[in-house]
């Protein structure tokens, strides 16, 4: 049984105030795929992400991770399998040191202390911040916080990585380094972002959401070349696919 599959079947979500945030989404992400989720503000991306590890449960329809349907009974397994990296690292780093934070997940899995230490060490080495292990999170720079947040998820050895706006608030160099880092990960990935150039670098496939519906699902380059679709979904072509601002050539 592969845990690496991520599937939404007629997924709908209606908030308590009556807002229909998701209106019948269908998609399947396969083992090792790196998929982007793009859409304007309020398109329903965050709501969708929260369904993938059971923070929100569907009003109707279902989410499946591997063969397991996300529901109250399977949450424990789902949360180990699906690693969620939040948009704001300050939400994700709540312990007093980076080490403690990265150890939080493995300790909750009930692993012995030696295994926890090993996992923390490996996760920190993976994102190249081993030297920051004993620093308090609020002392880190934006880029370091982002790496630490990713490490907290890696230490759980997830099969699927879900990232919400991973490049938000990063300087160009940190952003470039992050892209390099994510490229090396062999996990199944779903990346929700407004950074369409990052999508071009990292994802072969893109899902486009608009007003709670899936408007397109296909190869990234084809989708970004479809001007009418982008216009209808309040999106713009990535900079690298736009014409030169001086001579207009692409």
């Amino acid at each position, binding site marked *: 049984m592969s845990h690496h599959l991520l599937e939404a079947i007629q997924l709908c979500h209606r908030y308590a105030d009556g807002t229909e945030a998701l209106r019948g989404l269908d998609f399947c992400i396969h083992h090792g795929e790196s998929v982007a989720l793009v859409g304007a503000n309020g398109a329903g991306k965050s709501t969708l992400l*929260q369904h993938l*590890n059971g*923070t929100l449960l569907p009003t109707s329809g279902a989410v499946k991770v591997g063969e397991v349907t996300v529901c109250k009974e399977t949450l*424990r397994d789902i*949360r*180990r399998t699906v*690693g*969620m990296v*939040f948009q*704001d690292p*300050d*939400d*994700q780093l*709540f*312990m*007093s*040191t980076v080490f*403690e934070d990265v*150890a*939080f*997940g493995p*300790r*909750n*899995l*009930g692993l012995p*202390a030696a295994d926890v230490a090993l996992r923390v060490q490996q996760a920190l080495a993976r994102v190249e911040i081993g030297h920051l292990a*004993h*620093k*308090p*999170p*609020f*002392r880190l720079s934006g880029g370091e916080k982002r790496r630490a947040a990713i490490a*907290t*998820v890696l230490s*759980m050895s997830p099969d699927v990585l879900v990232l919400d706006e991973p490049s938000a608030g990063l300087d160009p160099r940190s952003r470039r380094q992050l892209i390099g880092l994510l490229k090396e990960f062999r996990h199944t990935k779903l990346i929700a972002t407004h950074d369409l150039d990052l999508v071009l670098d990292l994802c072969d496939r893109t899902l486009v959401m608009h007003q709670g519906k899936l408007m397109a699902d296909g190869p990234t380059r084809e989708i970004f070349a479809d001007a009418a679709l982008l216009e209808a979904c309040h999106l713009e072509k990535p900079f690298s696919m736009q014409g030169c601002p001086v001579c207009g050539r692409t």
Partner: protein
Amino acid sequence: MANFGDHLRELGALDRLASMDSAIHRLDPRAKVLVTLFYILLVASFGRYEVSGLLPFALFPVIQGTLGEVPWGLVGKRVLMVLPFALVLGILNPFLDHSTVLIGSWSLSAGWLSFVSILLRFALCVGASVILIATTSMDGVCMALERLGLPRVFTIQIALLYRYVFVLLEETLRITRAREMRANGRPLVLAEYGSLAGSLFLRTWERARRVHIAMLSRGFEGEFHGARPPVFRLKDGVYLLGWGAVLILLRLVNLPHLLESLLKGVAS
């Protein structure tokens, strides 16, 4: 507002110190917490007019701070920050208490004496606490309190509060800055204060919700599995008993008085 940001950075200074390494840092947090609590208890136990007996108690923070390489400026600043509370508590004493106390051949106003005594106690206790945190870290203190029997729910509250006080202060900084930019120098009125506090509360609430989701996402099921506590070694025991004995001795014997009578004895 630069002041506010400075305070924020200073708050973080304690954590930087706590991550250093010294003989005091290496001691078991439990030993340090116990000695400091005992110290505070003894300092508080003196009579209201006591000043001379309190003076030798400065020995503990001085030795602890020196061995722990805590900068005195930082301790001084913290003590000054808390001193206004002591001032408020004690300021009425000189006006309400008009009796006089004889010290040797001098007669002093009892009100002023008790006022000085309150200030001194405050300074000693706050100083010792600051040095404890600067050599142990908030985390260590929480862990020690938990190992000493304080329910986990309290220690976790303290640890999370300490973690998020920075985030909360930063948020406050942003809100007040945004207001100031458009206030055109007008001071904060009560009505505005209400909506500022309200929006700060809502933001905090949202943040708490997101943090909780983050915890759930990593398998949190209501129980914190902390790091394994350090082992209580012989030197921790020696430290605990040693300071315990010295502090009891200082409490029982008024060192300045003893010195005075000794000197008098020598002189006569």
